[in-house]
């Protein structure tokens, strides 16, 4: 396209000054941006209030979109359910009969567990979720993997609380405002989660790789005991997450552990629950630098 004449200011002083001021403001803008960027590297939570207010201003739209998304997913599931319904039904019935038997066995184990705990004098209290809400959005164009939750500090949500779906861990609360919160998803490169193998005591860290997979880093190096298909659950170390919640399934073995796929895909979940921090004292202790002593 042909250039517009607006850049040629000619002899008009006013036009010349306008043009010059434009360039000055643009350069100053870039400079301000660089300063803000450097500030938010050292203090990532500094602009959390602004971001929270911005998200709450569009929350009617994001809430509606989340409702429609989960609703339409159910609609598609209904339609795809009709495809090969007969054979699927037979397979499901076989599976359910086995599951019923296993459930009865599990009930027996649970009963025995309660009895043994009673003998040891351990109390077994049910953890009540702080809030139940929808994931209303995510940063889908950024390299970072954040999701936005439709509940905030007004509902009791606080920084550090684990977020889970019925299938497993989704992430951790990173920032809260009054009616929305930002969730650090497990797949983010900054997310590290202490895990253990479900069937034994192989402990590891699950780190996000930034491409949708988790990297399982074993703590005890040696012969790699992992196999594809191993399920990892939270170990409870660190104090943030309660132990025994499903996290990931190993798909590939590497030298120091493996690569795993997350169990609970945030895009497929309807409602998620925010749970209180499992052991707040341990979490504070883990966050305190070694040089500083913990008070009583």
């Amino acid at each position, binding site marked *: 396209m042909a250039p517009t004449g607006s850049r040629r200011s000619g002899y008009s002083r006013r036009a010349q000054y306008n043009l010059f001021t434009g360039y000055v403001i643009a350069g100053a803008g870039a400079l301000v941006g660089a300063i803000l960027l450097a500030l938010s590297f050292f203090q990532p939570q500094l602009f959390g209030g602004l971001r929270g207010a911005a998200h709450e201003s569009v929350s009617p739209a994001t809430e509606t979109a989340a409702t429609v998304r989960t609703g339409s997913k159910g609609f598609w599931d209904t339609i795809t359910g009709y495809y090969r319904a007969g054979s699927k039904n037979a397979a499901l019935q076989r599976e359910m009969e086995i599951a019923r038997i296993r459930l009865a066995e599990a009930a027996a184990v649970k009963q025995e567990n309660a009895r043994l705990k009673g003998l040891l004098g351990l109390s077994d209290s049910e953890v009540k979720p702080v809030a139940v809400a929808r994931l209303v959005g995510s940063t889908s164009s950024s*390299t970072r993997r954040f999701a936005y939750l439709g509940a905030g500090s007004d509902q009791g949500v606080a920084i550090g609380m684990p977020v889970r779906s019925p299938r497993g861990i989704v992430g951790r609360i990173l920032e809260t405002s009054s009616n929305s919160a930002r969730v650090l998803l497990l797949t983010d490169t900054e997310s590290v989660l202490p895990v253990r193998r479900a069937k034994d005591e192989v402990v590891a860290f699950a780190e996000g790789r930034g491409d949708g997979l988790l990297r399982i880093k074993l703590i005890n190096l040696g012969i790699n005991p992992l196999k594809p298909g191993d399920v990892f659950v939270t170990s409870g170390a660190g104090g943030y997450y309660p132990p025994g919640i499903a996290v990931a399934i190993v798909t590939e073995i590497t030298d120091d552990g493996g690569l795993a796929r997350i169990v609970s895909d945030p895009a497929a979940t309807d409602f998620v629950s925010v749970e209180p921090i499992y052991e707040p004292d341990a979490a504070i202790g883990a966050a305190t630098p070694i040089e500083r002593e913990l008070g009583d």
Partner: protein
Amino acid sequence: MERNDPRSRSDAYGSRINRSHSPLLANVVPWVSIVIGSILPIFPIAAALPMIPPLGLLMLLGWRLVRPGLLPVWAGMPLGFVDDLYSGQPFGFAILTWSLVMLAIELIETRLPWRAFWQDWFTAGILILAYLVTGWLFSGGQPTIHSLVALVPQLVITILLFPVAARLVATLDRLRLHRWRAV
């Protein structure tokens, strides 16, 4: 004369008799469309990869390259501020990069005043590449090689979407200059 040709007294922007442009619409449409582009990517839930193109930047490039002279050079600062509130990058990233994008296009325009569309597309592609790689580098997280590989689909989609954004901008521009107001 109207009997022979009903459109004889109108042009692409509507009737030329007793109709006028809406100053509000003419000024507001570019800015609002870019802000909407910044907000849209928060709606889908992407847990694995950055799948959605940076639509705000795409609209900014569209308006700047398809309609030069409409957005001022400093437009990157206020629009980048809005983008920063929604994008998930560290605050200040879009203010910096969008300002630099506007300055870079200004520079290119002084060097190459006469351009064809494919040259604009090339410019936009280079700027999108630089923007996404800078975003990967300054995301606030660990810039791993895997997250760089995960960036490739988004990069390809964004570059391929530029012509669509340019057509959308052209449509919005016709809407912007339509003679809505009766005088």
